[in-house]
């Protein structure tokens, strides 16, 4: 009877876990919400640096991303090639998040943000105010200033910043709807250089923390998500892979794996070994 009951409970437990193990039912208890809008994927991707538009679309599909970033640039009037991304990317299928990449002052970033909003899709902007050409590190004073102005104008500002807690807190206070600290410099692929700083920012902020820049491969993405952040934005990590479409799929899995590992709660680290197999029941010598 005891055996039967334990067998039944074992079967019951197994059935419950069968649901958990299916990727379709591995539910995230917290929806990914920015400024009241829920997104289906915690992975956001850029659209730059692809060998072709066809490859870009295929990679984005493989990544499962809903939010895709775009840049604002002058139309090439000589039209050596078709640069207009809207000829390739369906704005009904993706959430277009315009950036202010390449802007080196608050006023320049504000001008680009206004132009992006005039395109008519949304009032969201991934705000970048770059301070240095070598490192592309943010000018945090300019960033804060531009954030305040754009928030006043009704923009939803997602602010690309460094991994400094104080700047992150100020950006949140200024009304940014998400703060986007870097893992490492843009396009570097160095992975997360300061997990402590990223965790601290996540613990102290109320708005979503989305790590932006520096993720080079799937394990980087997984480790970033294991810190408990809300999402990741990446571009070069996918676009500069030898096989961008396969890397996009790997990043999708890595972001999900890292998220669930965070939710599951990792085992404590120990400096000594603890056997996994019973020490009792060993054969007599």
């Amino acid at each position, binding site marked *: 009877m005891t055996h039967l009951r334990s067998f039944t409970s074992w079967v019951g437990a197994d059935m419950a876990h069968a649901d958990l193990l299916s990727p379709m039912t591995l539910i995230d208890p917290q929806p990914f919400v920015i400024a009241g809008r829920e997104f289906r994927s915690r992975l956001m991707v850029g*659209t730059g640096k692809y060998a072709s538009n066809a490859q870009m679309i295929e990679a984005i599909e493989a990544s499962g991303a809903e939010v895709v970033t775009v840049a604002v640039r002058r*139309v090439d*009037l000589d039209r050596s090639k078709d640069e207009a991304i809207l000829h390739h990317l369906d704005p009904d299928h993706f959430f277009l998040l315009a950036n202010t990449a390449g802007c080196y002052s608050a006023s320049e970033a504000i001008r680009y943000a206004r132009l*992006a909003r005039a395109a008519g899709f949304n009032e969201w902007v991934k705000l970048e105010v770059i301070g240095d050409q070598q490192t592309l590190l943010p000018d945090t004073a300019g960033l804060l200033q531009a954030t305040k102005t754009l928030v006043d104008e009704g923009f939803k500002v997602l602010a690309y910043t460094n991994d400094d807690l104080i700047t992150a807190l100020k950006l949140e206070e200024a009304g940014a709807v998400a703060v986007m600290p870097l893992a490492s410099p843009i396009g570097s692929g160095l992975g997360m250089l300061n997990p402590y700083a990223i965790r601290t920012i996540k613990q102290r902020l109320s708005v979503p923390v989305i790590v932006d820049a520096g993720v080079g491969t799937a394990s980087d993405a997984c480790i970033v998500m294991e810190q408990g952040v809300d999402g990741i934005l990446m571009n070069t990590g996918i676009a500069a892979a030898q096989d961008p479409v396969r890397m996009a799929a790997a990043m999708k899995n890595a972001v999900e794996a890292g998220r669930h590992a965070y939710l599951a709660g990792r085992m404590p680290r120990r400096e000594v070994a603890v056997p996994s197999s019973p020490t009792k029941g060993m054969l007599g010598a």
Partner: protein
Amino acid sequence: MMGTEVFEAEIALAVNGAERRVPKGWTLADLLASLELDPRVVVVERNGTIVRDRSSFASLALAADDALEIVHFVGGG
């Protein structure tokens, strides 16, 4: 005389930083059409001010020395 007439019937603009001559009386819509640009995927800034309403493109007369910036979305991260 013919040459002078043609010259007077044109105005000079700065479009994306380069001089461009267009017939006098052209609208913004005429310019975009001549550049084979779909007005739905571009944003135009005229003399530092964004032309917000696309339906106004057809009535917006270009003036001599207008500085136009015509931008669109391109791939970026």
